[in-house]
């Protein structure tokens, strides 16, 4: 998985490319969780993400909890139909802010 961070108008955009699975989820955790110390608005761009497993969901939930506890916002955008189905079966469509 590739992780690309950019800042646009005060918002940190984290673009993911590839697969978010057991092997790569720790990379997202390292990129995302400490970022809440400096950013109050983090947008995860899933346009080039092809796969999310439960290990990936765990990190997304951790991100959402961290955002809440730090008074920050975390959004997820450009979710593919396949990944959306995984979000739907686990109730993540409600737990996350998907735009």
């Amino acid at each position: 998985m590739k992780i690309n961070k950019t800042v646009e108008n005060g918002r940190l955009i984290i673009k993911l490319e590839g697969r978010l699975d057991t092997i790569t989820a720790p990379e997202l955790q390292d990129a995302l969780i400490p970022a809440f110390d400096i950013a109050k608005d983090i947008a995860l761009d899933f346009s080039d993400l092809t796969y999310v497993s439960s290990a990936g969901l765990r990190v997304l939930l951790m991100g959402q909890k961290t955002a809440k506890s730090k008074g920050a916002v975390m959004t997820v955008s450009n979710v593919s139909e396949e990944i959306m189905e995984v979000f739907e079966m686990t109730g993540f469509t409600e737990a996350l802010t998907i735009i």
Partner: protein
Amino acid sequence: MKKLKELIIDARTENLDAVLDFVSEELESADCSVKTQMQIAVAVEEIFVNIAHYAYNPTVGGAAVRVYSGDDGITIEFEDGGKPYNPLEKADPDVSLSAEERDIGGLGIFMVKKIMDETEYRHENGKNILTIKKSSLL
């Protein structure tokens, strides 16, 4: 007649890609849709990683992954010689809770049950055998 393919591999998380590649090859030749391929991969990842983390801990042992494909869909069987453990007995998480109310984790086996049409565990001759089946590959 069902077609059978088998992969025997060390149960370590580093081997996850090899397991997923093996299974996807079979799903592709069975004309499985992209959506269903991804969902089955999610289920396979969960079970294999579970075996890698818990079956032989703190040592490492082997696992067999068998894929049967036929007119009635795809059946995948996982076998390991580790500690007897039925992951299907794990209680389902409450997926209606908000992010703050939820525990981190516990979703994996729940997803396996949601994705697959049939899941079955048995302990036989000192082996854990977990079988998952998906009838419709559309």
